[in-house]
């Protein structure tokens, strides 16, 4: 991807002549564990950038820590509006898309597929990501004329969602929106299908299930249950641009399977950080922040992209996906329905769903 990246500052010989070394930690997708792990990396290992995480709770916790410590945080998989909304920080940057963008991309596709007369029931993970994802989906579906039957918060890691799914049967809703991710999504979708929701008819309409945020691992975990189910992604290995092809080739040859969206965003974030250091000519976090703010680039798999200065959120195209009806092999789980253009998913920095936060000042650290 170095060769397809529009910036040519990196020469493939380290960063500013320095060899890159790294340490890793397991966040267990728990905010406290992630924060302790990042704290140890900063204090004991002397890291100057933290990258990764696969939960918005984790991202917000680690981002706050990095801001206090004067470290750059290049977020991994975090999809809550809050990460670059009310909890945004000057030292934190997000390449991944967010809940608002998922809603904005999915809305028109859902209208085209299912019409404008639907009644949606939300099951929502009870934490920052779930809340903002649900708010975004409710806004986008109500904008196309759908009604919201109910929003039920479910505990993270509930395992058995049967008690929450059963009330859907008699709610009068004809659509179930599962604002769940990871293992919860695998379980809730599987159990919803077991309860016969995909075969059900309500008010003369086929019952539909929607999963706003997809990942390859979730798709594999849910198996055939995802067939025909709409969702969205930040990036997918099936895209045909040169950046994607280069990344899929190098990743696939090393690991034997296509890269996930999480792998992609973390790799891109690392490259962007390295590139920013080169362009800034310094590892000083404030120099890096300055180099990243408003930076426009291409060739990383998402088309033309911009790191908006006002909130440190990347703006680019978003993918609307659907569970593949007849998968040809184990990797053929999802299909790209639409590449939604950036203009359709963009919002003002002071949009109400992102209000309440302040980037603050860059912290250069010790």
């Amino acid at each position, binding site marked *: 991807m170095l060769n397809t990246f529009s910036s040519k500052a990196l020469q493939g010989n380290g960063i500013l002549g320095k060899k890159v070394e790294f340490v890793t930690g397991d966040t267990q997708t728990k905010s406290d564990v992630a924060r302790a792990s990042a704290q140890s990396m900063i204090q004991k290992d002397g890291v100057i950038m933290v990258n990764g995480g696969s939960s918005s709770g984790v991202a917000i916790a680690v981002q706050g820590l990095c801001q206090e410590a004067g470290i750059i945080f290049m977020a991994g998989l975090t999809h809550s509006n809050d990460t670059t909304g009310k909890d945004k920080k000057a030292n934190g940057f997000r390449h991944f898309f967010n809940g608002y963008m998922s809603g904005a991309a999915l809305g028109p596709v859902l209208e085209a597929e299912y019409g404008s007369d639907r009644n949606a029931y939300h099951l929502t993970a009870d934490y920052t990501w779930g809340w903002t994802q649900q708010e975004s989906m409710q806004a986008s579906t109500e904008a196309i004329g759908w009604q919201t039957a*109910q929003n*039920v918060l479910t*505990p993270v*890691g509930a*395992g*058995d969602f*049967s*008690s*929450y799914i*059963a*009330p859907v*049967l*008699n709610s009068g809703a004809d659509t179930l929106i599962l604002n769940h991710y990871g*293992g919860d999504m*695998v*379980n809730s979708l*599987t*159990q919803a299908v*077991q*309860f*016969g929701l995909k*075969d059900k008819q309500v008010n003369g309409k086929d019952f539909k299930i929607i999963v706003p945020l997809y990942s390859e*691992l979730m798709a*594999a*975990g*849910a*198996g*055939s249950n995802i067939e025909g189910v709409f969702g969205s992604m930040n990036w997918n*290995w099936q895209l045909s641009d040169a950046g994607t092809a280069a990344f*899929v*080739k190098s990743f*696939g*040859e090393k690991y034997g399977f*296509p890269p996930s969206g999480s792998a992609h965003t973390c790799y891109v974030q690392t490259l962007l950080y390295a590139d920013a250091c080169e362009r800034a000519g310094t590892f000083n976090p404030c120099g890096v922040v300055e180099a990243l703010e408003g930076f426009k680039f291409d060739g990383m798999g998402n088309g033309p992209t911009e790191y908006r200065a006002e909130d440190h959120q990347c703006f680019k195209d978003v993918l609307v996906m659907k569970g593949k009806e007849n998968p*040809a*092999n184990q*990797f053929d789980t999802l299909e790209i329905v639409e590449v939604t253009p950036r203009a359709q998913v963009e919002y003002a920095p002071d949009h109400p769903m992102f209000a309440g936060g302040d980037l603050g000042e860059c912290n250069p650290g010790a």
Partner: protein
Amino acid sequence: MDAIFIQILNGLDKGSAYALIALGLTLIFGTLGVVNFAHGALFMIGAFCAVTMQRILGLSSTIIDDTQKDFLGNPLKVEVPYVQSWFGPEMGAAIQDWSVPLSILLVVPVMLFVGYAMERGLIKHFYKRPHADQILVTFGLAIVIGEIIKAFYGANPIQTPMPSAFVGTIDIGPVAYPTWRLVYFLFSMVIIAAVFAFLQFTTFGMVVRAGMADRETVGMLGINIDRRFTIMFGIAAAVAGLAGAMYTPILSPHYNIGMDFLVLSFVVVVVGGMGSLPGAVLAGFLLGILQSFASMNEVKAIIPGIDQIIIYLVAIIILLVRPRGLMGRKGVMEE
């Protein structure tokens, strides 16, 4: 009315899992006096026996298909499962389809061995130690087992589908209910009945019951009660393993699945009465149903968050009002 009926079914289904785990816990506590915090791990090992069976039946030879390409553009490697080569594509696929029920054949011997090895290798050294020591060592063991499973199978939930014959719903009165959940409930009934019958109608069971009531007197009769209790540990492990294996189509197994059930199952044991087998079963179903009702939107509208605390609220009330639990022996937990 339909909503209430379906929540009763949900409760019975959840209660089945709680009851099976609590039954094993109670067997171990009643016979050996050990508070086994690794019991959830036994449930998890059973679940991964189902995953293992799925993988064994999925073992395949690889052929290169030049007419198709993989994601890198290379000729596609097509996996042909051995069972399909040996038994023909249709029969082979049917065998693979039934991997979860077939995993019972793997679960029983594996869990009997695991239970035996656990008791002889570790637990027996803690019989005369305080309950706090037992809890610490078994909890530690559960973490070790979980990490071993994570190292071999990864951290992600693994899809373990039910046989296609049980996919979909079945009409029960006014509602349609997932067929496999009903199968699970019936399966748990059979296991519970088998355990009770074994204890009630066999000489072995009679000796074990006598040992549970008065271990020293039974020992004085020249009966090796320790050996029988070791076997009971193995049986308790097998019950937990069977519960775990058959639960995999409902909840995709992951390395931490046992912990999700462990705390709830201990509450079930306490509510049912420490050492009481019928109490464990009764409390399992009772708490399963209560938890399901507490998850109803109408109930949560009155008391928000009640679905998360109902089981613990009941446990607190029981411990205050009737410390020995619903069916516990007089004196137990009452000193």
